[in-house]
């Protein structure tokens, strides 16, 4: 499709209700601090109240939002949310991801009891399972796959981890797979395969430098722990890779939709743009962009200049301090609205095909179901 220069094609609006009726998986992604969790919860609640059986998987919700959804304990399985209007026959379950526990469960599934205990107790496993840069992303995907496999829900809404970069989430499963298949792992396994002896025989001259360095830098005991960990994990490699690939394919299925969440600020939109481009490269189904915290005014016809001039006049003459103050509040709001619109326009111009829906800035934090309903209703109004 070619566009003549100078004309802007208006972006289509995002039909949220259509999405919530048809999708099987909705993945909310975006930079940290843009309201991903709230958006995911609001979408899930709306779908549930429109009659679907919904599960929302959150990563790290704000305490009060978590409480409002009954997420007071971290037990790694979905619980019914109380207070949802079930008149249309829908339901809402919610769960918070326990990263380490999800990892432990995989180990227990794929290894016999004795080996599993060995793995779980190894210091390298403890380190990897609780702080590997991609573990949270990987486990979120793993959990999504598990929830999906039960067939208990029509729709699963996933909130992605607060990654340094939103892209980590797409890469993590493959990175973990690559890591487990990597040359290093095989090198470390070599001595074990040779019967635990004759390390140097197996290693070529170049490789002996490698163990030598590791020995000096990490210490011999550490290297031994590492070797044990890797060899005990070996039996599970196939399983890990298979699962990572399966989840990745799941994300490409027709029932899956990605919703990119952002706020009208340069950094957040830059991340959102990367994500949109990346999803299209990977042929992942992008539903659209949710732009949170957009400033608006019901009376934008009263301009910043006129409001400020009137406020100054009133302050000089002393005729109305309250009116002057409200005019200043209004001026601030209109200029914020103009700024937000400008930033949003730039995004639309660069990504003309991406549906966008805007949610207004809330004057207080959202931490109950009514608040989520309001957000849901705003999301459903095509912008």
């Amino acid at each position, binding site marked *: 499709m070619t566009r003549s220069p100078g004309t802007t094609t208006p972006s289509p609006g995002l039909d949220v209700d259509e999405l919530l009726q048809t999708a099987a998986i909705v993945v909310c992604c975006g930079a*940290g*601090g843009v309201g991903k969790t709230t958006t995911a919860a609001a979408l899930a609640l709306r779908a549930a109240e429109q009659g679907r059986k919904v599960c929302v998987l959150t990563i*790290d919700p*704000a*305490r*009060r939002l978590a409480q409002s959804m009954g997420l007071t304990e971290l037990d790694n399985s979905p619980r019914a949310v109380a207070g949802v209007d079930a008149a249309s026959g829908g339901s809402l379950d919610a769960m918070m991801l326990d990263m380490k526990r999800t990892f432990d469960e995989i180990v227990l599934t794929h290894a016999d009891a004795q080996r599993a205990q060995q793995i779980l107790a190894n*210091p*390298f496993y*403890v*380190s*990897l399972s609780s*702080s*590997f*840069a991609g573990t949270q992303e990987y486990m979120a995907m793993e959990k999504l796959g598990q929830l999906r496999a039960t067939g208990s829900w029509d729709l699963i809404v996933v909130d992605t981890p607060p990654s*340094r*970069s939103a892209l980590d989430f797409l890469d993590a499963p493959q990175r973990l797979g690559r*890591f487990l298949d990597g040359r*290093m*792992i095989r*090198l470390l396994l070599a001595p074990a395969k040779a019967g635990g002896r004759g390390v140097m025989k197996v290693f070529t001259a*170049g*490789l002996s*430098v*490698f163990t*030598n*360095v*590791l020995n*000096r*830098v*990490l*210490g011999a*005991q*550490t290297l031994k722990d590492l070797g044990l960990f890797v060899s005990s994990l070996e039996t599970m490699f196939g399983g890990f890779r298979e699962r990572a690939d399966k989840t990745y394919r799941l994300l490409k299925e027709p029932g899956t939709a990605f919703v990119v969440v952002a*706020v009208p*600020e340069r950094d*957040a939109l830059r991340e959102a743009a990367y994500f949109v481009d990346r999803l299209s490269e990977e042929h992942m189904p992008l539903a659209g962009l949710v732009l949170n915290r957009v400033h608006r005014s019901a*009376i934008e016809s*009263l301009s910043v200049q*006129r409001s400020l001039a*009137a406020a100054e*006049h*009133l302050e000089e003459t002393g*005729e*109305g*301090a*309250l*009116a*002057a*103050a*409200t*005019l*200043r*509040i*209004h001026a*601030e*709001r209109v200029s914020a609205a103009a*700024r937000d619109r400008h930033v949003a326009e730039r995004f639309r111009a660069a990504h003309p095909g991406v549906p966008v829906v805007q949610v207004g800035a809330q*004057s*207080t*934090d959202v931490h109950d179901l009514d608040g989520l309903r309001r957000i849901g209703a705003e999301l459903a109004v095509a912008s």
Partner: protein
Amino acid sequence: MSDFPSVKLHVVTGKGGTGKTTVAGALALALAAGGRQVLLTEVEGRQGIAQMFDTPPLPYEERRVAVAPAGYSGRGGEVYALAIDPEAALIEYLEIFYNLKRAGSALKKLGAIDFATTIAPGVRDVLLTGKVMEAATRERRGGGRLYDAVVLDAPPTGRIARFLNVNAEVAGLARMGPVRQQADSVMNLLRSRRTAVHLVTVLEEMPVQETIDGVKELTNAELPVGGIVVNMVRQPLLPQEALTAAAAGKVDSAEIDRGLKAAGLDNTRKLVEALSAEAVEHASRVMLEERERASLRELGRPMYELPLLTDAVDLSCLYELAGKLSEQGLV
């Protein structure tokens, strides 16, 4: 007078979206004022410093990114920047301590470094903090530029205690050996009076909660908590009495109506109602911010406030913010 005269290493953390990198940049500029040499470092591979100072991506090399006003000495202050990546830090470390430059590149080819820093994130953090420590403790003799202060744009609040508490992270993996020794000396610096960890937040529920949790975790890890920098603060525009009333949903619309008429604006009902509604929203926002500010005060740490900048943050804004940090005594 600075609230942190003994501090040489300033660690800046904050929740995503609170402007931690901006505050770190402003702090570096403030510290450089009066002719001092300051190093600003980042460890997350985001190239946030380069974007902020509008320079090409930073290599693993100390580059000058800004100058600060000259002091009595007549010498201008300078801010250098360094993006630390664990791979380069490991190779440098092997080179310095073991004279293993060639081994370093062999390991790189094998993917060993990627492997080591992946399987043991604690080791990665030791390398990152180790490099920061090296810059902060350089002495007259030996290589490298000498700095009066080092600012670290650190990982976010949720991970900061874990990132800095390298000893605990490495202890389980390496009970002895050079990595452990390195972790110990990093820990000595981090726990000393020469280090302060400043937390950046905005006046919203989640960032404030994370700040409170972060202070608790840092304290438990015996890491020195510095100041709380409250960023993007908005001015309350309503007089106190009207603010309290508006927060309760009460706005004197007759008075607004009179005022609009006096100012020669169309005092339609729609306009009056919309202005009242905006005043109510403004007031509830301000009250919420006041509550969050009060919870932060309970931490008993020095607090510094920076205004919300209406335009995109550029270099001139950084100088303005640096000035505010100095005025309030952080520097």
